[in-house]
């Protein structure tokens, strides 16, 4: 069967099981947009290419399947670099297809030419420039394989216009041939035995759970391991929901804005069992001072993470699901050692006492007084179905959302952790809702973030993707303001945004959303109730919140996690 390159590309995507793609056409990618009309694949037309990339990420986070985005060459391709970098940092499987000028014009500074494979080399797991239409099925198969296996990540296929127009004989490869890429999901049995021994010997152990557990679809086996060992769990920003917040052994989020118990449990532990986490600086604080007495068992599918920042005593290269299953099996296989394992009841009791003594706290003064953002999040949470997917942007609202929501199911929390991409929330929420149309999707956003990608609400309205947006408008770039207040002597430099400009309600309505404004605590509940009843279009609630509210606890940058500041009183 003869196909054009464009037809072969779309057919290859169909063969990969792609049901939706996010994109925006243009000159170089034009030929590929023609066969889309005849394809069962749904195409969501975005308003900016960055939106397409984040939608693909949101879709991948929510469904576990790779997200697909397609844009044209040059400026469109460079617009999608940010989502690629974001997905690379957070190990999100997305496949991005960019148009490219004809092969004969490459390197001539042709119209809308950008060297996108060169530009994205360091923010993709791999990328391909297709120069022969006969390679298309092979490359698509390889791209999906690379994106979704091992440590997942973004890949890019650059697709020149003449290749799209060329003829090829259709085939579909039965396997991929990548001699340099052989991910190994199984942990080494000797290392697993060594880990089990350490787990039995430790008196102050903690599971330090990262996004790798979610990528490995390992929440259920993690729960089994925790039940078996009674060892408490912290879930990093990327792993919220990987272990239920309402479990008595869940300590919540560690790190710069983690709660006292999670932060201090890591600091004082004698064994960290790091599962798919990577000792990110936002978790460790000053690396030298991080968990100084702890031995480390480190499980990661990416060998380069082991020893990159903290030298593990027991390094285990493997997929978290496979390794956790092996650990559970090894524990069950040795009932005698299990019987004689170290007693951790004192440790668990100490942690419990810290949780009681140092809970997260804020004060909502009175129902008519200034509105606290944390109060809004608690009200949202209490009125939302338990399997609601929460998506956030980056900044104070992100930290409050992570702290005050209760995540009891995996894949209910989507955010930009590693790259910290402002404007992530709205497009990622749209992608999540497309992937999980039956679930409630709340984007919790800040006013700074909202202004970066709000145009995608037009996409949501037209494509009938009814997400809900809680816009916490404190009229500042709040996290920067917080740092300027705390560390720059209250010298506020270029952080004020104005509460009224733009008029968020009018703007949202102009984009086809239902929208209303909430100015005090009294109105919060009814507004949320109203929003929850609207399911035929996107809804945006603008909450006018206290500009001076800061995120606590906080470990200032560059200091040890022992120096945690619990609240404003700690600044004196």
């Amino acid at each position, binding site marked *: 069967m003869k196909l054009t390159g464009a037809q072969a590309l779309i057919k290859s995507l169909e063969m990969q099981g792609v049901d939706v793609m996010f994109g925006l056409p243009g000159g170089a990618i034009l030929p590929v947009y023609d066969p889309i009309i005849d394809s069962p694949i749904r195409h969501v037309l975005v308003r900016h290419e960055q939106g397409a990339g984040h939608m693909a990420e949101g879709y991948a986070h929510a469904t576990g399947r790779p997200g697909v985005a397609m844009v044209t060459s040059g400026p469109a391709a460079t617009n999608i670099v940010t989502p690629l970098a974001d997905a690379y940092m957070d190990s999100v499987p997305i496949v991005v297809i960019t148009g490219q000028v004809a092969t004969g014009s490459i390197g001539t500074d042709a119209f809308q030419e950008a060297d996108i494979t060169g530009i994205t*080399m360091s923010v993709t797991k791999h990328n391909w420039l297709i120069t022969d239409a006969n390679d298309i099925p092979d490359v698509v198969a390889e791209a999906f394989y690379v994106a979704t296996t091992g440590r997942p990540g973004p890949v890019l296929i650059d697709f020149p216009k003449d290749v799209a127009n060329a003829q090829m004989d259709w085939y579909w490869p039965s396997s991929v041939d990548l001699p*340099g890429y052989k991910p190994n999901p199984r942990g080494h049995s000797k290392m697993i035995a060594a880990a089990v021994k350490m787990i039995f010997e430790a008196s102050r152990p903690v599971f330090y759970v990262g996004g790798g557990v979610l990528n490995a679809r390992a929440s259920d086996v993690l729960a089994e391991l925790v039940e078996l060992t009674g060892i408490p769990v912290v879930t990093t920003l990327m792993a919220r929901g990987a272990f239920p917040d309402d479990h008595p052994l869940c300590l919540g989020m560690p790190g710069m804005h983690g709660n006292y118990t999670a932060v201090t449990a890591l600091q004082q532990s004698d064994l960290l069992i790091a599962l798919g986490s990577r000792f990110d600086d936002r978790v460790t604080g000053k690396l030298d001072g991080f968990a100084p007495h702890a031995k480390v068992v480190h499980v990661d599918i990416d060998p380069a993470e082991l020893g990159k920042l903290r030298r593990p005593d027991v390094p285990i290269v493997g997929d978290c699901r496979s390794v956790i299953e092996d650990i559970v099996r090894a524990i069950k296989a040795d009932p005698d050692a299990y019987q004689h394992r170290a007693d951790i009841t004192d440790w668990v009791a100490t942690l419990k006492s810290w949780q009681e003594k140092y809970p997260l706290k804020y004060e909502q003064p009175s129902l008519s007084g200034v509105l606290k953002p944390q109060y809004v999040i608690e009200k949202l949470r209490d009125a939302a179905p338990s399997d609601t997917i929460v998506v956030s942007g980056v900044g104070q609202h992100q930290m409050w959302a992570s702290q005050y929501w209760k995540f009891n199911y995996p894949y209910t929390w989507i955010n930009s952790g590693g790259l910290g991409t402002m404007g992530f929330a709205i497009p990622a929420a749209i992608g999540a809702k497309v992937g999980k149309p039956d679930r409630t999707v709340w984007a919790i956003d800040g006013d700074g973030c909202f202004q970066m990608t709000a145009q995608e609400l037009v996409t949501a309205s037209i494509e009938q993707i009814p997400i809900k947006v809680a816009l916490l408008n404190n009229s500042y770039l709040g996290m920067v303001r917080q740092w300027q207040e705390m560390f720059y002597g209250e010298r506020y430099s270029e952080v004020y945004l104005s509460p009224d400009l733009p008029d968020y309600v009018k703007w949202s309505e102009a984009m086809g959303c239902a929208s209303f404004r909430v100015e005090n605590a009294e109105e919060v509940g009814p507004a949320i109730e109203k929003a929850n009843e609207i399911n035929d279009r996107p809804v945006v609630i603008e909450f006018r919140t206290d500009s001076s509210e800061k995120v606590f606890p906080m470990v200032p940058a560059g200091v040890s996690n022992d120096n945690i500041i619990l609240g404003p009183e700690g600044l004196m």
Partner: protein
Amino acid sequence: MSISYIPGNGSSSDPSASLGVMHHHVLSVLVENRAGVLARIAQLFSRRGYNIFSLAVAPTDDSRFSRITIVVDVDSAPLEQITKQLHKLINVIKISELDPAESVECELLVATVNADISARGHVMELVALFDGKIIDVGIDKLTVLATGEPNKIDDFSELLSSFGIVELQRTGRVALAKLERQSNKLKNTTGRAG
């Protein structure tokens, strides 16, 4: 020419004697012979802050693959992290770490040196001692070539400089692991003893 120069402190017997070998390590990287592979490797080194001392690329006997010999600065990052990051590149197939004591290394140098009528004989003598060749002759200059282990090339370059070097180009080293000369059993025994 029967008399030729052999470096006094061969890098193979005493790695520390050669220039900076203590902090250098040779990686022999087998890669798929595809467009952009060198760029991927170079970019990885630059992005992660690893330093390269020299780099040589050429196809292997199998046209699907190329071999890249990289001399890395292990002070800039632990060798383990460098090789792990290299392994993450999809086109990288195999990485061999070549300990200078366990490998044969070779480098090529071409240099144009001042060689007027009074110095010409001395230059030719030096080139002969180093098993080199004269590959171009000018009125008052010679272009010479020498190959050998990097130590020898260092010495040759230093001795040439007394005549005045006009231009000099070195290839960077290429290397392969030494061949087995003993049975494994014997080798392990000596290894333990050493």
